[in-house]
């Protein structure tokens, strides 16, 4: 029982410091302009861990030692997280002060309870499902300092393991970061990577609620589509079964949200679009196709003309490639060929 309590506390602390350090970045002059609404801020906070996995990817790609990379990232994130905790606490407190609806309190209480249950399950349930096992194996290799997958090699001679997935290593790298921190405390059961599902499920529901509340201006109306969404068996399974689905869906819906709010972001729109699209691509292959379709549609629909239009979307494309698409380019050119090649 004590192990469970300590484990849940460690998970809470790690996720809180991640979100807290992301929130601290929101006070930056530039970012303050684009995180004016609660929805914007929480999307940025949720995207930050994915951005972290991209940074780790590049550092490993440049052959820096894995322990050094994870150690420095942990120090930076946890350090800034702890430093930013008062700011984050003030933000949470000011958000709660504006709540005047019992429905909203009940919804937040239910989400908090769901996260606790999810953390509990992350601690007690073994790695069992096929896809999760593959991600866990990759993340363990990253933790052990074996970065051959980053260099394009999929077969691991010592165990015979072969990674057959098509996706960029965003999810296992994020899991590796958290589990590296956990390994310092002897929690070796891939706890953090399992907790990603529940955390991003809660974020998906919470951010959706904030958006619907903005649209309909009534908490009880905002919570109804959430209730309809989770009333299906498949959605509940995707929120509970440890998998990549919730973070995948969150990142691609973040892209849709950014496109919907194009006018509000004004001159920063193309940068923001490129960033969220790139991060979405770094999580899952299917997002690459969705991103391509959505950006293309947005390009056709854009009011810009001529050289200016091409320049803006070229900048977006650079961000998309730099923050996630690069994995697929490397796979297509120097690796297995991704969806076009034989694995």
């Amino acid at each position, binding site marked *: 029982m004590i192990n469970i309590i300590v484990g849940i506390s460690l998970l809470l602390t790690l996720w809180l410091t991640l979100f807290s350090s992301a929130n601290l970045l929101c006070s930056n002059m530039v970012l303050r302009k684009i995180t004016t609404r609660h929805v914007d801020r929480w999307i940025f906070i949720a995207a930050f861990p994915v951005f972290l996995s991209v940074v780790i990817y590049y550092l490993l790609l440049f052959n820096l030692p894995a322990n050094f990379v994870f150690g420095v990232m942990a120090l930076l994130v946890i350090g800034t997280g702890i430093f930013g905790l008062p700011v984050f606490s003030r933000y949470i407190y000011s958000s709660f002060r504006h709540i005047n609806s019992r429905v909203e309190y009940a919804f937040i209480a239910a989400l908090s309870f769901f996260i606790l249950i999810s953390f509990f399950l992350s601690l007690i349930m*073994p790695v069992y499902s096929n896809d999760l096992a*593959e991600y866990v194996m990759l993340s363990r290799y990253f933790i052990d300092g074996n970065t051959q997958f980053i260099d394009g090699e999929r077969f691991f001679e010592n165990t015979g393991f072969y990674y*057959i997935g098509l996706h960029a290593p965003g999810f296992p790298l994020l899991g590796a970061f958290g589990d590296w921190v956990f390994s310092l405390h002897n929690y070796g059961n891939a706890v953090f990577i399992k907790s990603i599902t529940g955390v991003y499920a809660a974020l998906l529901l919470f951010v959706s609620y904030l958006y619907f509340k903005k649209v309909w201006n009534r908490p009880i*109306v905002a919570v109804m589509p959430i209730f*309809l*969404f989770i009333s*299906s068996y*498949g959605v509940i399974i995707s929120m509970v079964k440890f998998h990549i689905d919730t973070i995948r869906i969150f990142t691609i819906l973040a892209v849709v949200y950014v496109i919907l709010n194009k006018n509000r972001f004004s001159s920063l729109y193309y940068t923001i679009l490129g960033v969220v699209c790139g991060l979405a691509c770094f999580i899952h292959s299917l997002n690459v196709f969705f991103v391509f379709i959505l950006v293309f*549609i947005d390009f056709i629909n854009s009011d810009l003309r001529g050289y200016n239009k091409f320049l803006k979307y070229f900048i977006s494309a650079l961000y998309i490639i730099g923050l996630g698409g690069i994995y697929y380019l490397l796979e297509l050119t120097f690796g297995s060929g991704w969806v076009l090649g034989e694995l």
Partner: protein
Amino acid sequence: MGLRGIVIGRSIPWWMPGLVAMALSALWFIFYSTGPIDSVASYRGIDGTPQKWFNGHLGLFFKIDMLGAVHLFLLPVFIWESLKKKSFFKNSVHLVWGFWISFILVSALAYFNYRYWITFSLPVVAIVFKYLYENLRSKSDKVLIWAIALLLCVQGFNIFAKRIYNKLNTNSITSETGLPQKVDKPVGASILARLTFKPNLVFDFFNKNQVEGAVLLNGLPMFYTHCRQKAFMYFAERDIVYSSIGKSHLLDINTSSDALPRLSLQDLNIQYVLSSSSHNQMFKDFKKWIDENCVLLIQEGDIILYRIEHSHETRKST
């Protein structure tokens, strides 16, 4: 007033999309799988042409057992809104195009897995709810909205409850060498046992003994996360093993004329096979090979460990 007067230039009665949705949902029950043709397809509910279309390519709307019934409303809502002069899609027509192109993409390439349809679920639910709410703003109609939502949730939870009921009533924890047995356990213990279950006997066999030889994993990569024994990923559906040379054929079952290389069990020093009873049921040729060439060592839950008989290697070499 006829149907034309209702449709053009006026709000659509709230019950019309619901009526259409319920009629469409009846089609799902008509075309539900009537028997296995392909085991994997049957498991996913897409065996047979009607099932493949309704549960597969159009699964976003008709795979009600996993996605609930709300998505059914999207088609009539979308059609009615498109007929109106002031549609709430008017400011985001390009996103509507993006939605349908993405739908076609998933329908063509990723229809076999309901998880990819869930990507569309939140936007679809939001659109359907927005339609219902904006068309029925009067106080009495709000009661009707909650009634509709409640009905949909009841349908969704009914399917969910049915699945939970089915799972709680089948539990197969076996003895070390026995066949699967149904064990009646109290609900509480059953849930915790199922949550924390892992085949410890199998893992201990490799972790606590000096075992020679590699293991052929029939789609069970979780073995790697619990054991250090060398193992190779294998997919019985297409007789493909993954090794240092990539994909290759191994057991000469499901013979195929593709250009993949062939390896033997000796090449990879494979002496054990780890599979599951559900996989064995799905892949009959593989099960037949197992029965002819392997000896059952351990069966724990759904997981089965076999040892390959050495006589198989002798037969193969002569």
